[in-house]
């Protein structure tokens, strides 16, 4: 028991004690909630529904109630009921929209499989982690009104992913228009083709 190892240990703790006053590497705590660590862009917590623009979120939901995410969700915490009627989507095509879209955030484990399997880029991962409610059902089961957030918000939290998604959608829209124009020209029908009603793509 010569004690040399003990002295070395004491030296290490002393260096850390002194270091914590001047060396940021040895003082790692951030004083939440005053200071907040910057969340990495890929950070994901609960999902949210992407709406084209903020003014009319219910009208411009990208979701077409195909219920793929409901089937693929591991804890089965998404509940969708299709609407009876249809409404035009960004490309002008008439699509079904979700009458009820509820996510039970008490059961959701933010695994983002719904985002991965959604073919319409309609559901993306949010970054909200300060999320408390006083009631198990009214507070924690979010319906589509609470879930819908505009595309601009999506650009805010996931800039690169949002840009890539918008690029793809714009390209798809251009291809759809191209095909529509070709079909119309090919048919060369006497009456001029109905002008497709195009929503202004999100800036």
């Amino acid at each position, binding site marked *: *028991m010569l*004690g040399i190892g003990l002295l070395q*240990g004491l030296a*290490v*703790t002393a260096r*850390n004690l002194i270091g*914590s*006053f001047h060396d940021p590497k*040895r003082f*790692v705590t951030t004083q939440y909630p005053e200071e907040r660590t910057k969340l990495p862009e890929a950070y994901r917590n609960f999902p949210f529904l992407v709406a084209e623009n903020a003014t009319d979120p219910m009208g411009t939901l990208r979701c077409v109630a195909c219920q793929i995410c409901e089937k693929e969700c591991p804890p089965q915490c998404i509940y969708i009921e299709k609407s009876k009627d249809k409404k035009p989507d960004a490309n002008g095509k008439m699509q079904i929209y979700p009458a009820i879209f509820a996510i039970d955030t008490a059961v959701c484990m933010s695994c983002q499989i719904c985002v991965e399997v959604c073919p319409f880029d309609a559901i993306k991962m949010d970054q909200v982690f300060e999320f408390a409610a006083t009631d198990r059902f009214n507070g924690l089961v979010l319906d589509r009104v609470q879930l819908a957030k505009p595309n601009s918000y999506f650009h805010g939290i996931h800039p690169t992913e949002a840009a890539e998604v918008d690029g793809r959608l714009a390209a798809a829209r251009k291809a759809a228009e191209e095909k529509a124009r070709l079909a119309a020209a090919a048919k060369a029908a006497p009456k001029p083709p109905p002008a497709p009603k195009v929503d202004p793509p999100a800036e």
Partner: protein
Amino acid sequence: MNPCPSGTQQHFLERAPVLLRDWITSFLPGSTRWLADSLIDIASILAVFGLLFAFLTLAERKVLGRVQNRPGPNRTGWMGLLQPFADGIKMLTKEDVVPRAADPVLHFLAPVALLAFSILTFAVIPFGRNLVPLDLDAGVLYFFAAGSATELAIFMAGWASHNKYALFAAMRALAQLISYELPLLLSFVPVVLATGSLSPTGIVAAQAGWRWGAVPNWLVFTPWGAAGFAIFMISALAESNRSPFDLPEAESELIAGHLTEYSGFKYALFFMAEYFGMCALSGMAVTLFLGGWHAPLPVLEIIPSYAWFAAKLLVLLAGFIWIRATLPRLRMDQLTKLAWKFLVPLALINLGTTAFWTLTHPWEGPLQLLRWGVALGLVLIPPVLLGRGLSSGLGPRRYRYA
């Protein structure tokens, strides 16, 4: 406190506490003056050491935090200064749960007895030039007698809780405290042998003055004094259940040891008693080895003596906290082996060294070098030999790679 000495060369700060006390007691009739003096002593000790306990818990948590690269408590008040009072209020308001199977009288008495015994030990420690609460001529003996009664209280706590883990802790506490009582006492016997007196003021007086103008002749600067101081501090660590000897309340094995069945203010009393015990033992270490309230340099005499005592006490307490932040815990049999096979023999050898040291006092010139050589040899060689013998099987290892 003894009356103010006649010499007027003591500057005002030095005499301030005594003057204050005399001014207060001057309002009372002469016959009750002695009672007022002792009551003032008690009140001042409880106030000073009560506050020291409060801020010691805060200092411990801040230093532990800083060592672990985190700030420690800083939410209550500026830099966490109100944390002790917040803890106090929390402890007061927490429900005091007494298990049905526990023995209520003993369960209640244990913390009270523990606190009483550890406060008793403050009566004899000379805090300043004329700040000695009780100047007994066998003060050191009284100190260790009061201090060793705490074992009974801890066993009472463990036994009364009627809980298996508490019973374990009680047995461990008994074994540990008794086996470390011996090196504690054996390490202060050389001091009595060298200074020739059992009274703390006498011992402090014997350490007055400076050699060659700069080196104070505190006992710690003699070879046997340093060894005695080391043994005293290791035993003090064990006596106050501080890491690496905190086996009774070993949280990783026995949940909270003898404190398992305590909650509310009784739980806080245990910690108060532990910190008082720590302060008392460090106070005695300062008195015995670090020259009590003497200033290290003659020119520093202007700072009052009680300030020097406080400075030395705080340095020792910082050492306690530093060790707690670093070292893991010993196992029960290693702990007792360390006491009986390492510290007690060293303390006995130290007794011999002191006898040699005091007898060879009149040696002059080269003989003085021989004296220092032999003393240092007697102090340094045995621990190395004993240490190597005890840790025979242990050591760093080399590893092969497949």
